[in-house]
């Protein structure tokens, strides 16, 4: 690496003020909306999942429709550890879930990442469908369609119990999300992140300069799978239950929608998109329990017509316009 490149990356590692915003908002929400913590915890967990998706789609250009497989594998790993092996410590479960999902991501990544485009989408989709079918059939392990019950979780560090109000769940999810965000951010600002961007933008050229493209892709895919697994474990722990929907095709589609809605390849798109989508859905569903699909559908079509870069993209062009207006 050339010295000036590493300085460039070191310089950009410094956290800008705006990057603190999500965390301030998240903490403020904890105190301002104590009645919404359950929804809040769900949002945080899905942000983690969507963040992992952004890593593969936004930074490595791997379009997948099977990411829920890793989320589900993580969720079932945590659940099965508790229900069948009596391992109830949340942090231990988290580590195990991340590891298992990461390994599965590595194994399947070696197989599917040789392809691209529609083929890649179909392969990821088919593999996640196989995972779902296995979970449906292995009822003695997973409970099948009835779900895996009997999951109990010990207090975190032996002290913080998961409470009815969702306080622990919220802060715990927030803490995990923060740590992962920090790691992902550091990773993306390293030469590793730069080589990913290179692959995404011009694969042939990266191959030309001797980058180990396939190895990089498998690495990032495994990391992303591991993060999705962590999110899955959080889901299990905050619900003390796992159902087949954690592995579903619909979930894979939904998180893709959240990501594109927020903005792809921008790290914070996952935060904005997920929160916007889940809050919109929650509010619409409460006002119009039967017809909220219509509203969400119109919202999505509207975004593609008027805000292609997602919400963050729209924000960019808005600020750009404002700046121009102010200069004039």
């Amino acid at each position: 690496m050339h010295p000036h490149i590493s300085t460039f990356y070191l310089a950009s590692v410094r956290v800008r003020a705006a990057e603190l915003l999500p965390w301030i908002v998240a903490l403020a929400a904890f105190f301002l909306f104590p009645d919404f913590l359950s929804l809040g915890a769900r949002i945080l967990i899905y942000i983690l999942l969507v963040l992992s998706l952004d890593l593969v789609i936004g930074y490595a250009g791997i379009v997948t429709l099977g990411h829920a497989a890793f989320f589900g594998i993580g969720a079932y790993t945590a659940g099965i550890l508790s229900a069948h092996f009596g391992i109830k410590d949340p942090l231990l479960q988290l580590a195990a879930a991340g590891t298992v999902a990461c390994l599965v991501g590595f194994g399947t990544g070696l197989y599917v990442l040789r392809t691209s485009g529609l083929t890649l989408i179909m392969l990821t989709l088919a593999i996640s469908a196989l995972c779902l079918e296995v979970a449906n059939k292995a009822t003695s392990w997973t409970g099948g369609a009835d779900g895996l019950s009997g999951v109990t979780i010990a207090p975190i560090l032996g002290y913080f119990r998961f409470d009815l109000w969702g306080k622990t769940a919220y802060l715990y999810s927030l803490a995990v999300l923060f740590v992962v965000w920090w790691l992902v951010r550091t990773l993306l600002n390293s030469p590793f992140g730069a080589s990913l961007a290179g692959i995404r933008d011009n694969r042939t050229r990266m191959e030309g300069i001797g980058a180990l493209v396939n190895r990089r892709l498998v690495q990032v895919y495994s990391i992303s799978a591991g993060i999705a697994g962590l999110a899955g474990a959080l889901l299990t722990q905050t619900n003390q239950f796992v159902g087949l929907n954690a592995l579903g095709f619909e979930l894979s589609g939904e998180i893709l929608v959240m990501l594109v809605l927020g903005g792809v390849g921008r790290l914070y798109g996952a935060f904005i998109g997920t929160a916007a989508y889940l809050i919109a859905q929650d509010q619409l569903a409460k006002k119009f329990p039967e017809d909220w699909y219509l509203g969400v559908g119109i919202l999505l079509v509207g975004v593609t017509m008027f805000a292609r870069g997602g919400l963050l993209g729209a924000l960019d062009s808005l600020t750009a316009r404002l700046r121009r207006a102010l200069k004039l």
Partner: protein
Amino acid sequence: MHKHPALIGLMFTAVWLATSAPASAQTVKLGVVTTLTGSNSLLGEHMDKAIRLYMEMHKSDLPPGVNVQVITRDDGGPSPDKSKQLAQELIVREKIDILTGIVWSPNGAAIAPLATEAKIPTVLMQAGASANVTMSPYFVRFSFGTWSAPYYMGAYAAKHYKKVYIAVSDYAPGADSEAAFEKAFKEGNSDGTIVGRVRMPLATADFVPFLQRARDANPEAIFVFVPAGKLGASIMKAFGDLGLDKAGIKLIGTGDITADEELPTMGNTPLGVITVSHYSGNGDRPANKAFYAAWKKAYGENSIPSFTAVHAWDAMGGIYHAIREQKGKLDPDRTIELLRNYKTDDSPRGPIAIDPRTRDIRQNEYLREVKSVDGKLVNVELEVVGKMVVDPWVEANTK
């Protein structure tokens, strides 16, 4: 399936009133978590309609000054995390007195620890997995357990057939139905043989190959369990297409394959199909006739209530009983006590009671046959094959 604009208006007004009326001291808050979107929204829709119909018709049954406020939430299908979130919000934010609805068993299972911790009496209007009701001491079930209908079907089959083929959907309730049917069939007739069996994927569009295979095994009857809805209609279609009735093979199953609301779309194929269920729209009881008439008056002549509507109707009966007895000031433990001892002879399904020990419903299982009455196909009740019974799995597995 046109809805009446006036009715929709009325419903919106009702929702608006229900959600915006200031809660007085005498308001009982009822949280409903149900499924109003997704591929099985019909069940949730019927639940919702039955709840509103019951409330409309039983205003005068409430003690003076007491009113009931319903807060409905859509869980979108089997999604434990979402239903748990919704239930949690209903409990901590809306401060509901009673939680009800709950179409899906996994959703019920996810809510169980909440109900226990928050001491919220939870009245299950569906959630049929046998084990579900055992998961919280604050659960009471007004629907049915998955083991029940196939068990009594098996007992009946043991007396009438020697060779039976079993075809069930490949998921947990299907496996339960298979086990329950086979247990009763073997108990009833040690000579009887299961000549073959198959578990069919839920995502099956075409049942012909499965039934063709069943036909080749040459059974006297095929026992089928698939979830009510489009799959029931699809399997009936395949049965007719293959001409199995002409080949002398009898189709038997749980009420799901001849669901009242699906029968009109099935042509004449279901004629003669034998099923066991706890409710038939055709049931000849005054309470049922009154319920049917009220439903049709409110929702149109072409709307046929499903069994879920009846579960919801009866659950509301239990809930109103608990409200009356406590004069609108609900204590969770007292509510559960009242609900677990609830009984009535006036349900559309006949006499029902909650079994105090298991908190599960005690009801009749009827043997029915599809017949044409006044040019319409209906499930005609032939006899009571399980008299005031509790789900056999729950009976055996509750400590």
